[in-house]
């Protein structure tokens, strides 16, 4: 990446009131010029667990992701940031193929998980989703007991042994730092928990499936500050045992919890690097404009 290339970039500091993201046609501006994203060199030394290569995604006619390429580092927390509509959630939901549910979605390019293709005719989507757990923006406990929520993944996999179920439930709830709060009422409805507890329950439920990656789609956006702090603390503790990809709106949160941060804008990856570097000395002007709050 040369300074010459940077100068051709039209957005950023010169125009602080820069164009707000256009949800309907994110591709309109993108097609004019192709600028390669800036990938910080530190990432080269990381071991990649999930690789995205030249990935495009279309909703019918409109393109939501443009030639995104990035590697998710094993055992690390990677944050995806960017203004709403930038495609970060779409990218996350492409990783466990949850976008398959939407009519008219089409993808091109490659995505591999541990070297195995995610978008392949022979890929077993169900198995894939078991290995890539997901936590949603709005907590979505099922209308059943806390215990049954946690062991749901085991139940649908056909596990019947009570001992095993109880063991996994306790372990997962402890990992989600929820055990002490609910151990006396495991068999009451999960819907009676508070919002923050429900979200941690959803994390416990994802962990119980023994995934290798946790995909988190703005997991704290519906939570109050105290509950948010608890979930962030939890993400900290999960680091190392799990590879975490977290989409967040909140840049402070990204700065607090993640090792690496990818900044996306209008369906493109703009800059990707170690969180500390990216937030303190961003390489590109758009990144700087965004993280200093000048747009988005």
């Amino acid at each position, binding site marked *: 990446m040369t300074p010459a290339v940077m100068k051709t970039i039209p957005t950023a500091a010169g125009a602080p009131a820069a164009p707000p993201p256009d949800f309907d046609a994110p591709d309109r501006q993108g097609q004019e010029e192709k600028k390669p994203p800036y990938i910080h060199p530190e990432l080269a030394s990381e071991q990649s667990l999930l690789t995205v290569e030249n990935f495009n995604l279309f909703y019918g006619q409109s393109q939501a992701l443009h030639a995104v390429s990035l590697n998710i580092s094993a055992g690390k927390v990677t944050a995806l940031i960017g203004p709403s509509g930038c495609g970060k959630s779409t990218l996350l939901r492409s990783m466990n193929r*949850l976008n398959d*549910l939407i009519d008219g979605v089409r993808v091109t390019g490659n995505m591999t998980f541990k070297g195995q293709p995610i978008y392949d005719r022979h890929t077993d989507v169900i198995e894939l989703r*078991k290995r890539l757990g*997901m936590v949603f923006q709005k907590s*979505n406990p099922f*209308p059943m007991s806390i215990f049954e929520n946690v062991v749901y993944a085991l139940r*649908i996999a056909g596990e019947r042994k009570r001992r095993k179920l109880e063991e996994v439930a306790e372990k997962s709830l402890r990992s989600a730092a929820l055990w002490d709060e609910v151990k006396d009422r495991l068999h009451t409805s999960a819907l009676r928990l508070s919002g923050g507890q*429900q979200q941690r329950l959803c994390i416990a439920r994802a962990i119980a499936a023994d995934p290798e990656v946790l995909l988190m789609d703005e997991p704290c956006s519906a939570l109050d500050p105290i509950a948010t702090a608890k979930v962030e603390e939890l993400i900290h503790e999960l680091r190392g045992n799990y590879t975490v990809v977290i989409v967040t709106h909140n840049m402070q949160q990204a700065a607090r919890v993640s090792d690496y941060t990818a900044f996306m804008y209008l369906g493109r990856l703009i800059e990707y690097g170690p969180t500390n570097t990216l937030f303190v000395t961003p390489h590109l002007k758009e990144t700087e404009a965004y993280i200093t709050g000048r747009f988005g």
Partner: protein
Amino acid sequence: MTTTDIPVNLTGNPLPAPAARRRSRGQWVDRIVHRLAAGSGVIVLLMMAALVSVLFYAAAPSIKTFGLKFFTETSWRPNALEKIKRTPEGKIIRDADGEAVVDTIPPVFGALPVIYGTAVSSAIALLFAVPMSLGTAMFLIRIAPAKLAGPVSFLVEFLAAIPSIAFGLWGLFVLAPFLQSHVEPSLNAGFGAIPGLRWLHYDGMPTGRDMLAGGLVLGIMVLPIITAVSRDVLRAVPQTQIEGTLALGATWWQSCREMLRYSRSGLFGAVMLGLARAAGETMAVTMVIGNVNQVVASPLAPAQTMASLLANQFAEADGGLHRSALLQVALILLLMSLAFNVVARALVVGKQPTVTQ
């Protein structure tokens, strides 16, 4: 116009006279419209009151005569029987003129056969319709693309609009002969041959106009209502619930099962609505069920439902106990369908589990 009619503003001064007059006429119209609207609301309440009270009143003689025995008695005999009196040895007892002495056995009315007929035919209907309807609702929501779901929904709703007499005609001239010649002989033979199913065997020749035919026609008739309501109920399941199961590695069907569980009370309501319609359905059933008052286990035997009994006998009944007994049957049918509807309404409207924020 008296002064008290003049609207007053906040300062207590009377408003200018013309405005006051205009407004007062407006108020008068206002009051009439309000009264008419409220009156129509009261009419709706009166309709229900009339229904229940008239049937109760007219059924009173029968209720008084038979009491609870009405529900357990199996014979329905509108005419008094005359039976020649005999000695224990079997000799005819004669009076002084040599005429045989005759005992008069009064008419007797029992609702058990028709209650049984209604229950069993509705059960057959639901057995047939519920899986079909849930499967179709699932198809409409989870499988069919929007372009296909629209027309299929329309077809299903059109099925709901077909008058019951049309189903009756079809059942009588198409379904019944088909069952009689192609299905029931082998079915009956099967019932006879398999030891565990012996009780379902019918000793006569199945005619195609029997409990099974009635149940099937009813099943076809309740398909659309159960499908439409359960489609709406399933559509209300939040997308996050479906995604939540899939993200944990659930198969398509496992996530569908979660949808069914999530909306189980609403689905139960849908079934109750279907049940209410099946139990109260008259014309189609009357045309295919065979209209015989009896309690027979075999679905290949002719039967009678409450509604078909009314359709068959009410017009010919004399004014006495026979009519009153029929009215009691109508009352039971009304109360039953009210109960189904109340339960269904309570379940379909607003009893869905909610996920708190």
